[in-house]
């Protein structure tokens, strides 16, 4: 039966040729490692976020008077609503965590270098967009945590000279966070950002397919990047391992490990994405004592606090983000092995330690 269906489709659409080109004949470097599978894990996470987000939209009401109750209804009354909501909330945290790991492996293996500059730029933009979609989603439950975290986050924009106050008002839809802010953030969270993220994922995969996958800088192959900017050249890997079944099984193995961790958090640590303020309805007249952003914004939050002016704090962050975004155009050496790039390795480790230290400081402050 399956054979007949295959022959029927192959006769009309040549699916055998596609499978040969994209699966069994798509060769990957023999020394490819597990870190390369994080891209597939991220695709799965994004798909879960989209599906759970759509399911939540069935009962969620993006109205300041009804949002909190609708989320409570989902958590308590809708069959498996608690599971869907927790998957969405935990998934957003996991997406940032896996994205950071994916970017870190790209940095360490020098995969951002020529000819893959745009792979990095689109990936980095995706990182910023994921932070944006997390921030806008944070307001959706209209809890004390949502309300005040959004107030603090949008307020920091006011430090931008001249345009700051206007930008804050534009973001909030008024002088203060209110029903108009919820409307804007919900539209961004559920309609605009998912489409933009999907487009950037498409661009990221397009660049990956056009340049070919990079070989790890350690193991069997040469460490130097063979790219020479003379003419377009697809980096194939003759004698490599086929994507299907070899690396597809690695992808499935990594995805299963991800699911084990993800489900462990959902079932055994369901409070991970929340603080007690997340279960109190938003009250603009009652500021909670210790409102903190999500863990991945703690370093930014602490940076704003330690500089005497918010503008300086924002400028330092903007400079660091621009530096990272443009890294492939700054670091032009063809060497990709981390141990043969001592300056890079020192800066990278110092940067990671600084980020962790600022995050811990932000959490404890």
């Amino acid at each position, binding site marked *: 039966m399956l054979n007949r269906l295959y022959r029927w489709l192959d006769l009309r659409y040549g699916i055998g040729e596609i499978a040969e080109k994209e699966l069994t004949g798509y060769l990957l470097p023999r020394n490819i490692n597990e870190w390369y599978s994080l891209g597939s894990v991220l695709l799965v996470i994004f798909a879960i976020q989209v599906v759970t987000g759509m399911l939540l939209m069935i009962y969620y009401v993006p109205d300041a008077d009804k949002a909190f109750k609708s989320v409570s209804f989902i*958590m308590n009354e809708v069959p498996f609503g608690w599971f869907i909501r927790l998957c969405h909330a935990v998934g957003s945290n996991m997406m940032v965590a896996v994205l950071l790991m994916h970017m870190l492996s790209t940095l360490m293996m020098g995969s951002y270098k020529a000819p893959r500059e745009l792979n990095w730029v689109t990936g980095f933009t995706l990182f910023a967009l994921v932070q944006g979609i997390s921030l806008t989603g944070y307001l959706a439950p209209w809890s004390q945590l949502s309300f005040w975290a959004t107030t603090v986050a949008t307020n920091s924009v006011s430090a931008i000279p001249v345009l700051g106050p206007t930008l804050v008002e534009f973001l909030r839809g008024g002088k203060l966070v209110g029903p108009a802010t919820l409307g804007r953030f919900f539209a961004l969270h559920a309609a605009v950002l998912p489409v933009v993220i999907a487009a950037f994922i498409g661009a990221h995969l397009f660049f990956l397919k056009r340049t070919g996958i990079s070989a790890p800088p350690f193991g069997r192959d040469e460490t130097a990047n063979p790219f020479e900017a003379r003419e377009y050249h697809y980096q194939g890997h003759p004698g490599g391992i086929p994507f299907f079944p070899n690396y597809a*099984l*690695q992808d499935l193995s990594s995805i299963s*490990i991800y699911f084990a961790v993800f489900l462990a958090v959902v*079932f055994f640590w369901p409070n991970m994405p*929340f603080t007690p303020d997340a*279960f109190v309805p938003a009250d603009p007249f009652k500021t909670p004592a210790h409102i903190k952003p999500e863990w991945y914004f703690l370093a930014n939050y602490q940076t704003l*606090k330690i500089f*005497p002016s918010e503008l300086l704090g924002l400028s330092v962050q903007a400079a660091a983000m621009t530096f990272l975004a443009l890294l492939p155009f700054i670091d032009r050496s063809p060497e990709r092995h981390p141990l043969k790039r001592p300056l890079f390795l020192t800066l990278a480790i110092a940067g990671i330690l600084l980020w962790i230290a600022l995050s811990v400081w932000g959490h404890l402050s």
Partner: protein
Amino acid sequence: MIRKNILAILLLAPLLFLKPAAAVAAEQPETVCIQCHGSMPDRLGAPVNLWRGSIHAENGISCNGCHGGDPKDAANAMSPQRGFLGAPKEKDIPAFCGRCHPGVYKDYLASAHGRALGAGGPTCVTCHSNHQVMKASLALINEKSCTRCHSFERAKAIRDAMSGTEARIVGISGRIAQFQVSGVDTEKMGKALFAVRNRFHTLFHDVDVNRVKNESAAINKELDKLDAALKVIDDEHARRRVVGGIAVAAALLLAILFHLMKKTYD
């Protein structure tokens, strides 16, 4: 060399702008009552230190909360025009406290203690102390305190009848709070417990042993219903954890299976 120096300066320059975290914290301003009386000796200063260890201080109720006056203006802080009441006479103490605790005031007046007001009976401060006001709890019904006026026998019988109920209320309250911070809709249970707790608190000033015993039994029946509702949630969460454990184990097994399958192709 110059490039390295510039790089070092650029990397370290932001540190010059750091400010110590301690500088961020601001001191809470004190009322003028505390500022003046806090430095006074003996009778006029003692209430400040006593107040610091009170349930009122814990909940941010300062001197002016009871005695009135203007806590921001030292010159007129004790001016009757600014609502200063001063210290009440003994027979006025229950009404003085009752401005904020009207329910308790009503229960007290209805009790044997309240009926003896002005005839040697106890007032609020006899048991709860003044300035170092102690939180209403069964610990206040103790031999040392009660035997100042009468034998402890009846008081002990009342305390024994109520202590189990109080422990249950505290336990259920804790469980509800725990569920509330994990997204469970505890509004109905919270309201029910609030009503039960209020009903229980009316017994605190009752000295009729039989009524306390009967009422405690009725309150316990209400607590049974809350216990049953909490057990349903507990069971549901336990079921979720079992399903979660199976799901996590299945995902790990799949990971191992895929890894072994991949090995066969290597």
